């Protein structure tokens, strides 16, 4: 039997339907303004260079006594955690009674080219933690690290455990040498010193190009074929464009920090192999004895689950919890399932350790 049974009339209908959607979509697209993002009101509580620490304001006073500081990755903008009203990790955490703070790294330029991981972790993050502690009066705070920010949070907690009450990592790479990690595979033979010495800061466009080439046909063609289906739906189209903006609204990467991150994490895999030094101190995951909640996405093509789930084998804590989310690297913040599952899971886990 033939594998394809496409009736000509049906095929024609499909193509015409696509044309109609396009015709309607062209009008919709032309009527749209630039999409906005950020659903939750916030105030800046600390500024330093291009960094700003925000406190999100919920509709009610937080019931949690220990604040959460979100440490996002350097490679994308942090508003993904508060993209829009119905897709907001922050909003849902606030609704659970948490007190939520966020580090916004800003957009590094050539003046930031010499920032090292020591500057980011022992400098910016440490001072942000202090600022949040001062602002809330807490002696220790909860840290929520996301993606690369999760790796930073692991380093920070290992080095400054006296300031961290609980550590939560989301889609965080720990073992960078798992066989399904395509990004790591590609970076292994790159001469990082030559790369950074030549580029200075690493351009965001180059980073995005690299991410898109992980799945070139799906991310660059199929996604937009699918977009035709929603072209006549203004609300859906705005959602799509908001996400599209986030994907490509990327900061350049400070050269020295990028150099160390690629050499020590991607190439050397020192977070699990050992020998990772931030500043003048060695990072040992075994030194982390505070409670750890590790959340990863089962369909994550950027940080494969295998790269995250090994964390439990390396941290020193006896209170380690792991949560596998059914979704991808982005879906873990914005999907409907994520809104239902992730914030309550974080809140309940923290509540059990609030005593």
């Amino acid at each position, binding site marked *: *039997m*033939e*594998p*394809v*049974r*496409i*009736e*000509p*009339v*049906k*095929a*024609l209908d499909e*193509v*015409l339907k696509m*044309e109609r959607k*396009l*015709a309607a979509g*062209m009008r919709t*697209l032309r009527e*749209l303004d630039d999409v906005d993002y950020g659903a939750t009101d916030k105030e800046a509580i600390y500024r330093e260079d291009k960094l700003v620490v925000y406190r999100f304001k919920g509709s009610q006073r937080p019931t949690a006594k220990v604040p959460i500081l979100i440490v996002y990755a350097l490679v994308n903008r942090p508003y993904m955690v508060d993209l829009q009203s119905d897709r907001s990790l922050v909003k849902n955490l606030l609704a659970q009674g948490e007190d939520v703070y966020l580090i916004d790294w800003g957009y590094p330029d*050539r*003046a930031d*080219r*010499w*920032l090292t991981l020591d*500057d980011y972790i022992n400098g910016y993050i440490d001072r942000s933690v202090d600022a949040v502690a001062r602002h809330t009066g807490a002696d220790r705070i909860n840290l929520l690290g996301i993606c690369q920010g999760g790796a930073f949070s692991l380093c920070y907690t290992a080095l400054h455990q006296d300031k961290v009450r609980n550590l939560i990592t989301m889609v965080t790479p720990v073992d960078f040498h798992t066989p*399904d990690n*395509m990004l790591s*595979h590609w970076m*292994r*033979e*790159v*001469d990082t010193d*030559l*790369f950074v010495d*030549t*580029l*200075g800061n690493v*351009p965001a*466009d*180059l980073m*995005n*190009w690299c991410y*898109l*080439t992980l*799945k*070139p*046909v*799906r991310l*660059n*063609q199929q996604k*937009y*074929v699918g*977009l*035709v289906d929603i*072209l006549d739906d203004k609300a859906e189209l705005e959602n799509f*464009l908001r996400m*599209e903006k986030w994907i*490509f609204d990327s900061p350049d990467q400070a050269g020295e920090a990028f150099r160390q991150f690629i050499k020590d994490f991607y190439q050397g895999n020192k977070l699990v192999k050992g020998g990772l030094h931030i*500043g003048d101190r060695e990072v040992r995951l075994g030194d982390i004895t505070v409670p750890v909640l590790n959340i990863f996405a089962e369909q994550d093509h950027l940080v494969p689950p295998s790269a995250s789930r090994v964390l439990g084998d390396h941290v020193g804590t006896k209170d380690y919890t792991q949560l596998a989310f059914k979704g991808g690297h982005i879906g873990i913040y914005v999907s409907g399932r994520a809104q239902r599952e992730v914030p309550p899971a974080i809140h309940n886990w923290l509540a059990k350790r609030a005593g």
Partner: protein
Amino acid sequence: MADLPKNEWMDQWQALSRQYWAAWQELSREAAAASGTDPASVPWHEGFEQWARMFGAGDAGKQSETIERVLASARNFTAFAQAMIAAATAGQGGAPGWQEALRNGFRIPGVAATPFDNPVAQALREISGAGARSFEQMMQGLAPALDPAREAKSWLRTPAFGFLREHQEHYQKMAVALIEYQEQASRYNALILKASQRGFELFESKLAAREEPGRQIDSLRALYDLWVDAAEEAYAEVALSPEFREVYGALVNAQMRVRSQVQQEVERIATDFGMPTRSELDSIGQRLHELRRELRNGGSVSSGALAREVETLRREVAALKAALNGRTSPAKNAEAGGAAKSSPPKAQATRKRPRQAAPKKRPPAAAALRADVDEAVSAVSGPAQSPPRDRKKSPPRARTHAHAPAHAQRPATPRARKSVAKIAHTPSRVGHPVATFAERMAAFARAARRHAKPAVAAARRNQRRGGH
């Protein structure tokens, strides 16, 4: 479709194509986009081309990038669909042969064959539309600057000499870098082509798996999605191979060498015209950054004389601590003979200290040392940092001074003295956290020396007696 004889299916398809074109013209009548050609021979994706012309970048404003992206993808989708159908119905008689159509490739009138011969490469090229700059594009951007290098290719085997020797050598390096990059780009493209070919193989096998009743594909979109699955699977196979890893690294490294050479040329020209260069700005930025780090860290971490002095002090204190431990640990005390016995008054005095949490467990010499350090630190820190104590409640200090007046008067070693003098008394350092730290360190060192010396002497005596 599969139930119809092929010729009949073809007739029906062509009739529907005319119908499609008429429908499209109806949709786009406001744009007066009548083509005037035979509709049956016009590829369906031409409709999307017309949309692209109607809603070009100039008209679409802020969303033009999205429009461009959607149209390109829709065009590819319909071209793929029509190509599949056309190829499958090209033979005579019988049902359409999908596998045969795949083997023959997607040849579409009006569309360049290359993208469909190598759809993965096409997808990679199209990424640029999103504002990204692929390596390929970067090289295109560099093309004007590379012209001198191209001219210099003929010089590659010529040794450089004379007044322009350095320039010639630079151009030779640039040309070599460019050639190497082109070689690596060819290797990379070959692997991308391999991924495309493998994609068609996988597509065939995925189609074969759909021959079972109930699993057939009944829509163009489902057919397209299956092809995408196959293309991505094949790409991942290749991209995760050791060969790809090596080629990818070589390609990136080769391009960086070209860029580096071009940057050097730009800097040379900038210097000739008296303009600031990137290297100069970076150099200033680096110095500024190091200065900021030093200030932020209180000067204790960065390199420099101050850091070296603090490090020296740390080492001295560590050595003294080690010596002191050797004197006070029970095992070593036994080996050291009279060393422990030499300081019973201190032990006694220590037990009298009310603020000690566990005075009986603390070695007597250590307690005396701590008392001395407390006193010294208190002295240098001032009342704000260390509240004044009731001297009547501090017999250890009195006893310490009574027992070791010579040590108390002994000045620090020249190195330590210099450190303290420089750190603690430099006007700009007064009140500085580092100065405070240095003062505490020096005080600690002085106190430790006073108490460690008898222990060290005892240990040496013991060694001379044959002890360990």
